[in-house]
């Protein structure tokens, strides 16, 4: 312990190993920039137009909310399969209560609240009922929340929401008119930035956040360090559910309705964004900025293919390929980074 370990970083380290920290930090940014350049080259007049860029944010906002909540869960080496259904549950609770005359300030809070409740149940189930894996509990919640969403709505969509409820999902700030084009800034864009900023502070700069990383890194270490692992996990799943509820609120605002099929398969999109964004299924790894990148990459793929009139089947193939590649790059990174 008294000898210096400087000799470990000698000049014989191959270049690709020395590049690892660089790619850890900026790899996803490079991918995004290159994707944008390719899309811009293919649709020069359309892709970088203000309206298209704000569309991308409108289209990715719900997935952005689900993904950041999912990231928190995956950091603890867990998984939440229920977020898509919880989104629908929040959305339908909101829409049905609105239709039955509940005042809008309450309607507004109902979706995040139902999400929180579902997430709390997930957390308690995983820790206190000692489910062998979060997969089981959240798979159960996937069905329960979907069933509940259908039950309270009778399986039919409800439409027509008051403007304050739609605000988050559909309102825009009018910036002005230049060269005959009207520039609007979607509120949901600002909101997404705000949420990611909050999560960045939460994970990097609060004791809670560091403990979430510690639990993902080594739950035993966290436990013997006096961290209340169960309590932390319950909070993590509650936050994840809350974000699913927020996604439900955004989607309700965007579509001016609640439809019980909402969010089907979105849990997988969120997991994909988190994995593309550099998180590890084994927990403890990944950064908020990376997740933002993962969400953006998914949105860019969808947008790019739509702009080029490509079938959505291609979107599925590409996202699948990118997930595999993203994880493969991570495997290579570890191989290079492992000391022999």
């Amino acid at each position, binding site marked *: *312990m008294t000898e210096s370990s400087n000799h470990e970083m000698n000049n014989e380290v191959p270049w690709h190993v020395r590049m690892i920290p660089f790619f850890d930090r900026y790899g996803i940014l490079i991918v995004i920039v290159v994707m944008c350049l390719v899309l811009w080259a293919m649709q020069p007049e359309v892709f970088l137009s203000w309206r298209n860029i704000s569309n991308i944010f409108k289209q990715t906002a719900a997935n952005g909310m689900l993904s950041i909540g999912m990231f928190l869960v995956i950091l603890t080496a867990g998984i939440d399969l229920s977020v898509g259904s919880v989104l629908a549950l929040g959305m339908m609770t909101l829409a049905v209560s609105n239709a039955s005359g509940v005042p809008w300030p309450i309607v507004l809070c109902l979706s995040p609240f139902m999400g929180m409740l579902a997430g709390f149940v997930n957390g308690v189930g995983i820790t206190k009922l000692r489910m062998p894996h979060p997969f089981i509990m959240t798979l159960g919640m996937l069905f329960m929340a979907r069933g509940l969403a259908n039950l309270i709505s009778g399986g039919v969509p409800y439409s027509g929401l008051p403007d304050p409820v739609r605000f988050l999902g559909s309102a825009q700030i009018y910036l002005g008119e230049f060269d005959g084009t009207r520039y609007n800034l979607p509120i949901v864009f600002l909101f997404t930035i705000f949420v990611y900023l909050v999560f960045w502070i939460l994970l990097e700069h609060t004791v809670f956040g560091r403990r979430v990383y510690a639990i993902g*890194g080594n739950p*035993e*270490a966290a436990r013997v*360090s006096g961290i209340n692992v169960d309590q932390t996990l319950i909070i993590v799943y509650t936050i994840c559910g809350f974000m699913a509820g927020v996604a439900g609120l955004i989607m309700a605002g965007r579509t001016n309705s609640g439809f019980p099929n909402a969010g089907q398969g979105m849990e997988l999109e969120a997991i994909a964004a988190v994995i593309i964004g550099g998180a590890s299924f084994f927990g403890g790894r990944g950064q908020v900025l990376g997740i933002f990148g993962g969400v953006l990459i998914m949105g860019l793929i969808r947008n790019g293919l739509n702009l080029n009139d490509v079938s959505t089947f291609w979107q599925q193939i590409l996202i699948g390929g990118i997930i595999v590649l993203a994880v493969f790059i991570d495997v290579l990174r570890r191989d290079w980074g492992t000391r022999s």
Partner: protein
Amino acid sequence: MRPQNSNDDSPLLEARGVSKYFGAVTALRDVDLQLWPGEVLGVVGDNGAGKSTLMKVLSGLYPPSKGSLHFDGNEVQFHSPRDARDLGIEMVYQDLALAGNMNIAENIYLGREPKRKVLGGLISLFDHKKGLQMAKDHLDNLKIQVKSVEQKVEELSGGQRQAVAIARSIAFQARVVIMDEPTAALAIKEVGKVLDMIVGLKDRGISVVIISHRMDDIFYVCDRVMALYHGANFSESHLKDTSRSEVIGWIMGTKENVRELAHDRVK
């Protein structure tokens, strides 16, 4: 058994008649243990003799099924490792219990993170700067050299990790450090450094309980050695009054003809 050079009236940490049952299995039966201030106590025994269970009882991870624990002469009850730690009893686990994905400083302060209040005390944030500085000072103080306290623990060698784990155990006014096989997973060249650190703890007045299979470790760092056999006290002695072969005999559960027996087994 009071150390010969001790002026203290009572042991710092004491277990009296501790038993521990796991269902029908008896892991410990009426075990007594005394740890005096500033001594290093070696605990030996074969696999399954109950050493690790006893350490987990002492560090608050397991409540004893029977018997009592005493600290500084007062009876104490531990509901979690936190309670033991509040009294200054720290455990260094065999698997080290470090989070490999986090840096050295964060591991040292895991569970007791330095905080700073912002927005008029409304929000309490993790104080990275203070944590890094404290960790650096602490490691310097212990003469543990690392490239940087911001290095991730998974990038460290086994000996460096053990050093971090020990540094972590004494970061907060520890009075007792319990170590479970601290040298088992180390490269030979790193063993000596870790043993020197343990001697260093003793010099700071910290009492140490160490479980080890390695007679070299026991005879290098310990003042006293006690043996468990089938979950019960078997024998104990001041180190200078015993020999390796006698201690090996204890581990195998014999006090008679130890020399011959030990020589038969350990050639």
